[in-house]
């Protein structure tokens, strides 16, 4: 059930591209540039909340292109948490980010004094 005319719907003329040989190629190259992973590292600072065990070292440099899920997994490992042990993670004591958001994105929006502060708790805290 494909529509016979691709992109039959009109786009506003403001978005209109010019005809030309290399436009699509240029666009693809642009996309490749934006796909490159951010290899910079950012400082993540873990802070325990409530009864959660405190970490001896709580500053870590983490590659910015990592997803937040990787941060959670790292934290679980550091705490020696087994699968199924409850762990709730928050940014700035305020919210749980989506696990597929990147550390880079979170750092840009929520860092404090050059750190991304990740709070962790064994019970739902700001749920």
């Amino acid at each position: 059930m494909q529509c016979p005319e691709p992109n039959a719907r009109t786009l506003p003329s403001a978005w209109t591209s010019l005809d030309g040989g290399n436009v699509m190629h240029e666009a693809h190259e642009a996309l490749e540039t934006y796909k490159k992973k951010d290899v910079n590292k950012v400082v993540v600072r873990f802070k325990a909340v409530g009864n959660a065990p405190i970490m001896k070292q709580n500053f870590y440099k983490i590659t910015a292109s990592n997803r937040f899920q990787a941060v959670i997994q790292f934290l679980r490992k550091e705490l020696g948490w087994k699968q199924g042990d409850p762990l709730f993670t928050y940014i700035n004591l305020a919210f749980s980010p989506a696990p597929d958001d990147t550390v880079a994105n979170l750092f840009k929006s929520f860092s404090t004094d050059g750190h991304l502060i990740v709070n962790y708790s064994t019970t739902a805290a700001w749920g």
Partner: protein
Amino acid sequence: MSSYAPRHSPSAFSTPASTTLFRRLTWEGTVPLEIRVDPNELPANSDRGLECYYIQAPRVSYLPLLVPEIKRFLQDVVFDETAARTMKEEEWWFESDGGGLLKWHWPIGLIYDNHAISQSVRPTTAASFFAPLRIVLHLASPPTEKLLMSPSAEACKQAFMGQLKEADFIRWGNTKRMTGLRKAEQDGLWEGIKEHNFDEYWRVASKITPTTTPTRSHSPPPPPTSTSLHTRPPSADPGSTAAPDRDGASNVRNIPARIYLPDGPVLQDLVPPVLEDGSMHTLGAFLTAHLPLLFPDPHSKKPNLAYALIQGVPAPPDTEMAWLGACMAGADGWVNICVGLLREGARYP
């Protein structure tokens, strides 16, 4: 940059009535889905001619909320009694036709638009805005690691609440508006989505979403009649007494917005409503700042190589970000900007 005539209206900031209109249009937006059970997983004795389920799903809804409906369909029409009895929907997961995992916690409209832009980079495929998105339903062995969360409506609700709070934090620098809601109100937001009930959702959402009342400092002066329009329609705002300025869309610190590129990545950054020179931050300026190779500076006279879809709508570059945040955000508070590539030699009249 824009071929549109300059705006003669006092500001893009609309009257409350049009705010409600755009919120309703966003809310009522639906996308066509074709959900097909993986043929290799169909239980014996299934009625094979009928294993496809078609639905026009709300953009603001989520895949886990469709599960009960799909389950009823499979039980009633496709499976035999034994298969229907042993069906375990907690093991279900969805894939796009091309094989990409579909995220439980992404709004369905975002899944659809994200698929549309990913088609824009594959010139051989006949992409269409109107064709149903083909989804493969798997009945067992969910790849939990990749799905990132358990495939349940409850987990989806928690993720939704997390997104609302993150949006709240981005707008105001804290989550007081969200945490100030009573439990019943927070649940009401989710119920509103589950029931696809605009009034139920906005009864609460209006307490956390910025208003679009014209502001004094940044926009050109409001029309003389605007003061009489300050009262928003009851369906959008029952009895809020907050000062309009404090909650105004251009008084937020930042607008919760993410840019989705074909096949990733997703970009998120702080999006102030007003730029340093005092002008309103527009979609075009935002895209040029983050993706200059696709959206060159308008002064360079180079053409754009891509376009932006918001809630399935190709949005004009001069759309104000603050307005988008107040009127075109998803139910989770986020403005999702899906960037697709313009086709070679394509003409868009």
